[in-house]
Each structure stands twice: as C-alpha cells, then as structure tokens.
C-alpha cells in the first residue's frame, strides 16, 4: 500500500514543472500555483495540496474565475450575479449561451485565500457590518472595492427562507446602488394532515402550492432577465441546461461516493471541498468544470483500484457539516488522523440530480425548495443521518460559521438528532476566516474527536 503525502505550494510548483517536462498538457488556465500568490492569493501559501496534476488543475480553475468572468464580458456575454440560492439559478442562466452566472457569495473565502491582504473584512467593518455577521460580509466589501469580480450586469437574490446575514448584507449591497431582483423562496413548510407532498431531490417533501409558487417566480425571473439583459431563456434551453448540469452533478456524486466508500482516502478533504463547491455555479465555465471534475474522478478511481491514498485504513471516518471559512482547517483533519466520509456543506441540493421527467421550470422550483436551509433543521438533520449511516461515518464535526444566524440553533437540532440515533462522537467547532489564533485549540478538539472515535472503535 502506497501512502500519499500532501505537498506544499513550493512542492506543487516543482511537481508541476516535472509533469510538464514529461509531456503533461496544461489547460489554458494552467500554470504553477505560486503565480496566484503574486495575484494576491497569499493564503494558499499556507495550504497543503494533493500532489496530482489534476488537483492542480482544480486549483488553477478555481483561482482563475475572475479572469474567466472578464473574458466572458469581453466576448459580449452578460454576467448575472446569482445570490444565495446556491445551485439553482445558475442552471437557468447558463442555459442561455449569452449569459454567465457567478456567485458574489463566493467572496466568503476571499479573506482566507488572500490571507486578509485584501482587507475586505476591514472594509466591511467600516460599513458597519462587523464580525457579528457571517464571513459573507466580505461580499459587501468586494462590491465596494470592485477588485474581485467585474460588476455584474444583473443581480438576482433569493429571499424568504434564507439566512438573515445574507439577506441583510445583500440589502446593503442594493443600498449602495446595485439594483437586485429579489425572488421569494418560501420556507419549505410541513405538510398539512391530509396534504400529499411531492418528494424533492434529496428526500424532503414540499407542498404542491409552494412548488407552483416558486415555478412562477422562475418565470418572473426569466421575464425580468429578458427585459434587463435582453436574453430570453426558453424552456428548451433550460431542458438542455438541466441535462448539462446533471452531468456535472453525476460526476460529483460519483466522486463523493468513491471517496467516501474507499478503504483508504483517495483525495484529501480540502480538494473534495473545492470540487463540491464547483457544483454551485460551475466556477463560471459549465463545460470546463466537467473536464476538471472528470479528471479528478478518474484519478480517484485509479487510486482506489491501486489501493493508494492518504493515511491508512485505520484513519477515522469523519462526517463534516458546514463549510469552513479558513481552508487550512480541512488540512488539519488529515493531520489529526481523520478522513472525510460524508459532507454537508449547506448546498447538498446542488449535488442532487435535477428531475428531467417534469417541466423544466418546475424541476428548478423543486431544486430550490430542496435547499437544506429552506426547511426545518430537522429535515437537514435527517438527511445528514441517512448519509452518516450510508457512509459509515465514525465521528461528526459541526463546523459553526462565526456570526451565522442559523448556526447556533441548527447545531443544537442536528447534534441532538445525530445523538439520538448514533453512538458516535460529535464535536462543534467554530472557524473564523483566518483562524491563526484558534489553530491550537481547533487541533486539540479535532485530535480529541479522533481519539474518542478510535476508542469507540475498539470497544465495538
């Protein structure tokens, strides 16, 4: 059995050079990762990476999104900032060849990637949006500085069953002179006694009238988009868009399943998080994202077949809930002897297949309502528990997002539900965008979790 080691940025550069010298074909966004440090992404100097060329493609693809958006604009495409729904509207936007969707929400990670050199959090503070808000406050600052993404041609944001942080911050974005098309995502309500619900991708149920309502909202968005940017999205286009999105989702589903069920972890937690994030809006290139993810899947399958991976078969199988604002903490998991076997990063609905047997706007409405954040925390907890069982997770990390309006209370419900079903350790941690001062205590908590899980393994 070969054990892989994560490598530093410097080692990545060396490995990349060697790969090229052996005839490796770099994609157009390829290159040494260290070049992104020069562009300001200083935070990546502190990360450890998977040692493969395809993982470097993944990183290069992630870190060149801004360039892609600018290229798209130069090519005459309209940029649509889709906010908050995480995964649904981009399917509709990409359905039109003249449109590109992106998530301004992605500014969440900028302070970490740039090691706070961008001073976005400071700018947000000055705007009165301080550390009692979730790290998405960096988005507000990014709109003000205008340094991180081109100004979108149109902004669309879901409201209703969304978090307070985002709703409040998006409103501030609009208050600064960036008009937003608000669309309503109702709270996915419990069904009435004699009401038949419709099962959504992911297993939750929604009332038919709510699906119809969201479908009408989709229709309204299409209409306003046509008026605002002059691009009419037809149902036929959406059908094609759904089919393309489903290819990406299928690839990710296969990737996750292969990783979670492998004897030895074939990919580090960090790269899997980055790969999952691609489902949200395809990192601004729906065709290329499939190339990147397929490459990753192929690599993972080869590693599994060869019995190659990180740590050994005794590493603890951890289920991770919520994304972390400081990506270094994902590296810490392996350093403490854990591996990822199950994830719920707030956008599981973006990983599910979009139904193709129903009219396309209804399919998107169902996807929007399947958002884990749109319903009760109990629904979210149920899905998490089903996956814990499916993947045999031995420990759970609930990573609280500092300031997030939902985390404190959702964490209680999720933890209680897991504990009522499984006899596995659950730990709650809180990870700020730059976690330097918390590194030692985070490490202690993760190590303790792994130890407890190993102890329980022996007792079983």
């Amino acid at each position, binding site marked *: 059995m070969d054990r892989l080691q994560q490598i530093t940025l410097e080692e990545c550069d060396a490995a990349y050079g060697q790969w090229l010298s052996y005839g490796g074909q770099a994609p157009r966004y390829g290159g040494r990762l260290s070049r992104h440090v020069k562009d300001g992404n200083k935070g990546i100097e502190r990360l450890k990476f998977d040692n493969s060329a395809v993982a470097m493609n993944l990183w290069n693809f992630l870190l060149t999104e801004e360039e892609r958006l600018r290229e798209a604009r130069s090519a005459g495409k309209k940029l649509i900032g889709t906010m908050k729904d995480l995964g649904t509207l981009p399917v509709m936007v990409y359905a039109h060849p003249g449109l590109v969707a992106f998530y301004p929400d992605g500014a969440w990670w900028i302070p970490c990637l740039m090691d706070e050199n961008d001073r976005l959090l400071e700018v947000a503070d000055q705007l009165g949006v301080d550390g009692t808000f979730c790290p998405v406050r960096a988005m507000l600052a990014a709109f003000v500085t205008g340094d991180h993404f081109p100004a979108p041609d149109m902004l669309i944001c879901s409201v209703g069953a969304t978090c*307070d942080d985002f709703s409040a911050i998006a409103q501030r974005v609009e208050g600064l002179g960036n008009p937003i098309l608000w669309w309503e995502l109702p709270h996915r309500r419990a069904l*009435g006694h004699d009401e038949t619900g419709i099962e959504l991708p992911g297993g939750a149920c929604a009332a038919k009238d709510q699906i119809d309502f969201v479908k009408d909202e989709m229709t309204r968005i299409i209409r306003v988009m046509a008026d605002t940017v002059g691009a009419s999205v037809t149902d036929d286009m959406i059908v094609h868009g759904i089919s393309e999105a489903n290819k990406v989702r299928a690839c990710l589903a296969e990737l996750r399943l292969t990783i979670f069920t492998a004897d030895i972890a074939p990919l580090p937690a960090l790269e899997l998080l980055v790969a999952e994030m691609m489902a949200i809006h395809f990192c601004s290139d729906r065709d290329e994202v499939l190339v990147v993810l397929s490459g990753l899947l192929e690599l993972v399958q080869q590693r599994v077949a060869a019995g190659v991976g990180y740590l050994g078969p005794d590493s603890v199988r951890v289920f991770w809930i919520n994304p972390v604002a400081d990506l270094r903490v994902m590296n810490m998991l392996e350093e403490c002897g854990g591996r990822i076997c199950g994830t719920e990063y707030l956008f599981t609905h973006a990983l599910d297949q979009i139904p193709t047997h129903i009219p396309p706007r209804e399919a998107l409405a169902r996807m929007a309502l399947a958002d884990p954040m749109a319903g009760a925390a109990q629904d979210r907890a149920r899905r998490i528990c089903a996956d814990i069982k499916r993947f045999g997770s031995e420990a759970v990390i609930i990573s609280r997002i500092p300031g997030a309006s939902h985390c404190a*209370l959702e964490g209680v419900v999720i933890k209680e539900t897991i504990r009522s079903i499984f006899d596995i350790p659950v730990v709650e941690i809180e990870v700020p965008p730059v976690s330097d001062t918390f590194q030692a205590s985070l490490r202690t908590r993760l190590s303790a979790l792994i130890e407890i899980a190993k102890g329980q393994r022996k007792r079983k």
Partner: protein
Amino acid sequence: MTSAPSTERSRKKVIYSSPYIPAEWIAAHGLEPNRMACLSYDRSLFVSAPVNVEAGVCPYMRGFINQASSDTRVQAIILTTTCDQMRRGADLISLYSHIPCFLMHVPASWETSGVNRLFLRELERLGEFLVSLGGVKPQPDELAATMRTYDEKRKKLMAQQGMVSGKDFAQKLACFAETGNVTDGREQYVPGEKCIPVGFIGSPLTGNHFDLFDVFSEYGASVAFNATETGERVLPARFDLRRLKDEPMHVLAESYFSSFPDIGERPNNRIFMWMKDRVRDHHVRGVVLIRYMWCDKWHAEAQRFRESLSVPLLDIEIDGEQIGERTRNRIQAFMEGLR
C-alpha cells in the same frame, strides 16, 4: 410539558410575537390572540431543554420562545419566518415542546401579486391550524364584524397618540397587542418646553425596555414617535370598509401584509422614506435605533439610517432585559450632543 389549564378562557390563549399575525383572525376563530410583550430573558436557550447556547442567539427570540413555551395557559404558539432566528426557534419548539407551533411564511419580497397571494394562502393555513386547535372557522360576516371591532379599537388607540406621553402610548399599544383592550387616556400630556423630541425605531420593546422612555426623559427628551416593532409603525392600515363585507380575507391580508414598512422586507427602501417623513413631521432632533444583539436585520442597516437621516442616530444594542450603565451614559452623551 404543560400542566392542566385552569380555565376555559386561558386554555385558548394563542401566543405570537410578529406584527404580521392578525389578532382579529385568531379572535374570529373564537380563540384568544396574545401578542406577547413581556418576556423573561432566561439565559438558557430553552426552559425545558438541556442546552445553553448564547452566542449567535437573539435574546428576544430566546426570551419569546422561553416564555411562550413555559406559560401553562398557552394553547399554541405562532411564529413567522420574518427572520432566520424565529424560523430556527420554531425548530426548537417542535424539538423540545409539546405545545402546537405554527410557522407562517411571511414573504420578504412585497412588490408582486404572487407574494400577496402567498400571504393570503398562509393566513388560510393559519386558519386551518386554528380550527385544529378547536377554533371555529368564521363566516365572512363574522370575520368582517371582528375586523370592524379591532379597526375601531385601533382608531381609538391612535387617537391617543400625542395626547399621552410616549411611554404611556407605548404601553397602551403593548396592552392592546396582548389583551385586545384599549385603555382610556389619562390627563393630557404636554411635553416640557425644553424637551428635545426624539424618535425610536428598531426591534420590539419588552418589559424593562419601557424604562428607556424614562431614561430619555431624565436627560431631557420626549419620545415623539415609536417606530419599534411594538410601536405604531407596525399597526396595520385601516381596513377598506367598503370591501369588508364582500371580501374580508383579502382586506385583512392586504392591511397586514403590505401596509407598514419593515426592515426585513426586500427591498426595504420604504422604511427609510417613512423614517424621513416621520423625522420631518415630528420635528425630531435625534433618532434612536434600539436593536437586539445578533439581530442582523436591524444591525446591518444602522449605518444606512445614520447616513440617510437628517438628524443624529444613536444605535443601542440590547442584550437582555436590563438597560445597563453604559447605555445610560451613551444616552446622556447623545442628549447632550443634541442640545
């Protein structure tokens, strides 16, 4: 978790906190609406639960669900989706309490006919819930009659604005929200000549927070308007009496859904325009934003209020029940600045 209710009347108490819930809709079902104003700020998250979470939890939400779920006279709790904290509060109630809880979706957007219909549909669902509690679905004329009664009471209440002190009026509003009763005005209130008029805006005022009126008065202010979430800002518009007979539900939905400006609506520019008008009409010289810790909706807009209003803004963050010494000092300094 509740013990046996003592009287038939108390058994029918339906508790809620949101101004979007029409008291007359509950009353028309034969149940007792109670927009609870007085809260206990118990530090534990939930009276009956083995959890104690403070960071990230709005003390108002915590106080509301604590008190509502531990009051033995409560038959049901209604929450709204107007903020994420309340949505999650509903999750907790269903996890830890046996009191039936209804979570009503109040649309955040307000500019389309679709969301108006959605609100109406949510009111109908609320009606179904009230029937499940033993309430009786009212006939349209019964609903219209109840609406007329409440409309008259609100008219009587509003007639007292400016006739009684800001604190008295705020307490009258709270009393009406809680009991449906309108108390008569006392002798006419005339603010001292040297009093500096200020206006309140922000989160609901509860219990000891009414002392804020006294603190401001101590430092020479009179509160000219109360645009907090328990103040006159959130009263529904008067009902369209001509349409009441034929379509009372529509009239009810319209008055409650879109008639008052709210910080959480999207877009929320109405509340900024509304505030500008109030500041001008009441000649106030300062505005006081009162908000709870962890309440993102008000917190995020503090700076925008500061920038958009023509008068200074004092931003007060309250963490619980008491008005602390630091807050008193800030009020004093603010008032000195307005002199």
